[in-house]
């Protein structure tokens, strides 16, 4: 019911204080068709890449989650070839965890986190997921290759944004590598993709 006024406010917030490593803007005067970019986190295989996303705001927003997909190809266990994202915040309860107090900014931030922290237990791409689990090195290699191929050359001008990445992301991704693919617990709600 509050889509218009709420979107207006969100867009204002996104333009004035965007989350680190994330930009989001509207296309063609349309408030419900947004584009976003997420900068690949330092220490992740996506480092150096800038990933474009499409953010579509449904009519019933915020009672429904925004529809977000990657436009830039990305090699990730939870993101499929057409860019669809398996993420609980993008789905309505009871399956998902969307709630109206989330917003575009928070959802994009959680996607950023998902990039740094794949969830192989809820795979959208089973092959990538098992690779992530059991052959981490190969996964990292491929993901980096994809990043170089698809996410880097197009957006050379934006690479500096990397430095804005929140430090905690670096920490967590390092931790992830130390853990060697062990998945952190605490994400039980993310298993609804396949």
């Amino acid at each position: 019911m509050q889509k218009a006024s709420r979107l207006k406010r969100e867009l204002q917030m996104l333009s004035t204080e965007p989350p680190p490593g994330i930009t989001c803007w509207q296309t063609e005067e349309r408030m419900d068709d947004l584009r976003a970019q997420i900068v690949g986190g330092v220490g992740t295989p996506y480092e150096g890449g800038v990933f474009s996303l499409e953010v579509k705001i449904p009519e019933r927003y915020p009672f429904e989650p925004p529809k977000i997909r990657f436009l830039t190809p990305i090699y990730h266990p939870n993101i499929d070839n057409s860019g669809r994202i398996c993420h609980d915040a993008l789905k309505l309860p009871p399956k998902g965890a969307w709630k109206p107090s989330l917003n575009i900014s928070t959802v994009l931030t959680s996607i950023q986190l998902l990039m740094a922290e794949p969830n192989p237990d809820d795979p959208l791409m089973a092959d990538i997921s098992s690779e992530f689990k059991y052959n981490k090195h190969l996964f990292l290699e491929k993901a980096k290759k994809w990043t170089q191929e698809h996410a880097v050359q197009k957006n050379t001008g934006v690479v500096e944004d990397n430095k804005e990445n929140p430090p905690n992301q670096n920490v967590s991704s390092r931790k992830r590598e130390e853990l060697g693919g062990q998945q952190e617990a605490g994400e039980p709600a993310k298993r609804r993709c396949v």
Partner: protein
Amino acid sequence: MEGSDGVEQGGSEQPESQRRRQLDRLDREEAFYQFVNNLSDEDYRLMRDNNLLGNPGEVTEDELFSRLQQIKDGPEQQNTNPSTESQEEQVEQPESSEDPPGGDSLLDWLNTVRRTGNTTRTGHRGNQSWRAVSQTNPNSGDFRFSLEISVNRNLAEQQAAAEGEQEPPEQSPEVQEVAANPEPPVPMEAEVVEEPVVEELAVIVEPEPELEEAVLPEVEREPPSPAPVQPEQAPPCSSPRRGQRRARSRSPEPRRTRARLARSRSPLNLDQLDGLPNPRHPYTSQSPTSSTDTPSVPQVEGSSRTRQHILSRQNLTEGDVQPPRVDAEPVPEGQPVISQEGESTGIEGGAAGRRPPTIMLDLQVRRVRPGEYRQRDSIASRTRSRSQNSNNTFLYESERGGFRRTFSRSERAGVRTYVSTIRIPIRRISDAGLGEATSMALQSMIRQIMTGFGELGYLMDSDSDSSDSNRGTSTSADLETLNNPEANNVDTSAADVDEQPVAAGVRGRTVETEMDEGLATGPQGSGGRARPRPPINLEEPSSLPFLRLAHFFLLNDDDDDQPQGLTKEQIDNLSMRNFGESDALKTCSVCITEYAEGNKLRKLPCSHEYHVHCIDRWLSENSTCPICRRAVLVSANRESVI
């Protein structure tokens, strides 16, 4: 709708008109809040429940006022009588007719229909025209829509008919939920009425079973009483448009053949699809039952049900098989089917001359809350078959993996009715495991049900000349088929009946009632002509509109997990207050708008507050706080949500 305000795009570039529009909108938003602030609680509920509030800034205050006046003046549209729980409140819904032109718009509309409350729409695509009615009961959150698609060469005529068409009145609930159960089922109901008009004109006046979707009653509905078969004149020529499918249906004789064929098909192949170890165990008993009433039995368990009706009407001129039923049939248990009959009879009267064979699908999927299912779990994986059968009524029940399913079929007077019921416990769990399994199983279940629709495609495609010869043999063979499994399972079914008086008994009675109707109707021309037939692959004949509809249900994963909201009463029970100046500055996290003085706020048990009109909408479909996700209801039989 409001995608055009480019606020962020640098004000200087905006045309003046656009800026003005924005200002207007802001004014209207302001007025909206004012309007809501000043509404009495009663008026607020009235408008909310009728979906009249719209979006802030969308309409002017004047418009809101006039809407309020309208709804107040028209008491027939009033939906706020909380005491009348068992009345269908949506029969007199405001109809907002829009006519999306294209075929895709139909699916689009289906996608949004659940959310838009009560609407009626019609449209055409090619030689098909459709009319869809959606109703949302604000009391229970029940949703129901019916879709009628008619394939018709005579659009104008069909249109006229569609206009005269009414949602028929309610059938009385045969099963009531236990009163102590505060959780109403939150069903997603869909009725699909498919009426391929094969021969000349198609006037679609289908007595559509109106479903009683009141707050608590678990409506165990009777299949719609068969529409009266009108004396019809065989149209002189057949429809060239259906030529591909119905190449042989040019003359009345093939048509009759087809109708028989239809009766000889059984859609009871639901189980074959997923290779159940314990598929249905049909049971046929030849003794007619005479119970005429269907008592209300407390039902603890909710159910998800799918129901299909197929009405095959035959022209009288060729109708040596089924006697026409022109008058309203005596309806047991006083359900208002009579008026429905009368109505349809009246309408059909005009079209009576050329009523073609009609197929009507009635699909219902009903969802249930979790707590109600508990007592079933112990017997969950049992397979049961119980059937009341006389002449041609069959009831199959099976249970496995926590799902219980029944399927009944009855035929009378050229009308065959399928009632398929699946009861599915919806567990509101947000984490993995169970939920996934449940959802998958549910999906496969629905797929099977939908596959039942395949029969229609089958019968449409195969009006073969040989069907007449099938008729004789199929009767005995089918009865045998149906009886054999039953013999193997007598013990099981008997035991189950004892254990499950609620479920089985009710089902049985339901069928009995149907059967009684059938008996009252007159001689049955089609005893036990059920012949199981391999299911049609859903993917194949998807050109049929109802199969597309099936796709709609199958492909929309979200439909498997309909969010379950609170009822109107439950929402209204939450505390409300007016925002006062003294309050610390706070923002409604739904609309990200700061509260203004006089705003009506609703406070959830977790102490989080929102605008009433913001949170009410969320709670009508969800049951958790948008901030902390705590369950708003801390009811005993509700599983704690997240």
